């Protein structure tokens, strides 16, 4: 009999702590599928951020390193500079990457560090219980924007792909989403492409993944997927912003 589906070898067979409907478990699965398919489990080091995915090393069966809040890009830089032939993945949430770690993110990208960033954007702080993220939409209610995010007080949500696309060095920038099957498959393709580029020594890749946080959004998992589609996607345009290796630079611009 032909195996058409199995749990990825690099995904540990343990129960995850993620809430029902959370996007992290989907993204972990995609990432480990890609690690298996590329056969890089033995040369991969994942940097775990501070945020809901702080314990990702309990689920992903590769070497891993913690990073202080916001400093994943700096830790990844140190790892990659010390081990250019290893595959380094920086897996970060929106608070980690786009608030407290903006400087590290921008400068690692600007140096064209040859590692792969997976940026999970769910427009809210999950682990601390639903505060405003740098990517929280205008009008979105959170614990710290109880009347909705007011752009006059808190500015407008940061579009990290667009910001990084202003830099010269990054190789590949794409925004994907995991709110439905079609986009989940696209997300897997993007992760695989980013990692392949790193293996080939091409340079910095940045994959932003729009994701669901039903618990802190206060909606059902199904409604959460719908909210990504209806509210997030119109603001955070999906697609390839830059793909220098395949010559499709700034396709969406």
């Amino acid at each position, binding site marked *: 009999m032909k195996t058409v589906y199995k749990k990825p070898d690099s995904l540990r067979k343990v129960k995850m702590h993620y809430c029902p409907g959370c996007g992290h478990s989907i993204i972990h699965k995609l990432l480990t599928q890609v690690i298996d398919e590329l056969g890089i489990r033995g040369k991969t*080091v994942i940097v775990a951020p501070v945020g809901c995915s702080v314990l990702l090393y309990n689920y992903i069966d590769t070497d*891993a*390193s*913690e990073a*202080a809040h916001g400093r994943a890009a700096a*830790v990844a830089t140190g*790892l990659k*500079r*010390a081990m250019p032939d290893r595959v380094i993945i920086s897996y970060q949430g929106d608070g980690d990457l786009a608030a407290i770690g903006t400087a*590290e993110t921008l400068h690692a990208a600007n140096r064209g560090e040859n590692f792969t960033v997976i940026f999970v954007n769910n427009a809210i702080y999950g682990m601390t219980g639903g505060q405003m993220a740098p990517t929280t939409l205008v009008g979105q209610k959170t614990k710290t924007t109880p009347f909705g995010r007011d752009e006059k007080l808190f500015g407008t949500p940061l579009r990290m792909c667009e910001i990084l696309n202003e830099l010269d060095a990054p190789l590949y920038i794409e925004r994907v989403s995991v709110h439905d099957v079609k986009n989940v498959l696209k997300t897997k393709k993007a992760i695989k492409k980013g990692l392949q580029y790193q293996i080939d020594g091409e340079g910095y890749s940045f994959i932003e993944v729009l994701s669901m946080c039903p618990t802190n959004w206060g909606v059902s998992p199904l409604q959460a997927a719908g909210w990504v589609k209806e509210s997030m996607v119109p603001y955070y345009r999906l697609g390839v912003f830059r793909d220098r290796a395949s010559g499709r630079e700034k396709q969406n611009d």
Partner: protein
Amino acid sequence: MGDRVLMRGNEALCEGAIIAGCRYYFGYPITPQNEVPAYMAMRMPQIGGCFLQAESELASINMVWGASAAGKRVMTSSSSPGISLMQEGISYLAGAELPAVIVNIMRGGPGLGNIAPSQSDYYQSTRGGGHGDYRTPVLAPATVQEITHLMIDAFDLADLYRTPVIVAGDGVLGQMTEPLVLPEPSQKKLPEKDWVVDGAEGREARVLMSLRLSPQRALEDLNIKLKKKYDEIEKREARCDEYKMDDAEYVVVAFGTASRVAKASIDIARTRGIKIGLFRPITLWPFPENRLRELAENRRVKAFIDVEMNMGQMIDDVRLAVNGRKEVYFYGRTAGMLPDEDELLQKISEVVR
């Protein structure tokens, strides 16, 4: 023995690190240690190493984490305000038991302070510095020659105990040019780095982290483990130097640049018939308290004079060691106003009277 060369403190520390096998340097400019990144930017490419000017001290110390997690000898350097910024990272390094060498060429504070020599980060260096229950070994050289030796020792201590190590100099020492002979590499036998995260090929996956959530006792267990390590370091690694102490009735306690001024005052005081000597801690933590206690218990010794380039910080450790057996006096200047040998002589005269 190598040739005698003339080097500036900030450059000598780089050569010491290179002899120790350090091939990774991450740093951010700040006066008065700017010769360090400039020198490393030139030297690292020559020897197949990596120099990277980070976007901040926060980034520097976390790049240090990354290279250390890969098992490499790695260092950063900064001066007081920059070291304050690194404290979060140093706490994480201590928690994850990652070796690293951090050089602090101290300047005046608090705040932006000034760019002049100071020793006012004694508390910060010796009490952990960041959050949590931890310590870092602190080495305090007094000459450019000694810097080169202590850099090598710092890397050995870091690897031996899996801990960040601080080398604490000051602006005078960093900027001063002195003759020296470059040391030979260390022959110390060190434990294998069986904790490195370099890809789990053919083995179980490893994680380097300071987070300890479960079981409930996990973090306390880590702290107990760290405490045992710190006890071991206190027992084995305290170091000090003594000058004209054989018959001394009065003891000046000073480290780094302050100890050099103290020596000059001691020499003059000796010509006036005062039996006085110098006790110089080389390790600020572990503080060489056992030897100082012995001196305090010695009936010949009448009093201690603590001399620092701050408002009196090491004096707490001196008093703990002396434990009320003898009087402890203080003389200090700070923030670029160097201790003056005549002023110290005046203080010595007052104490002797």
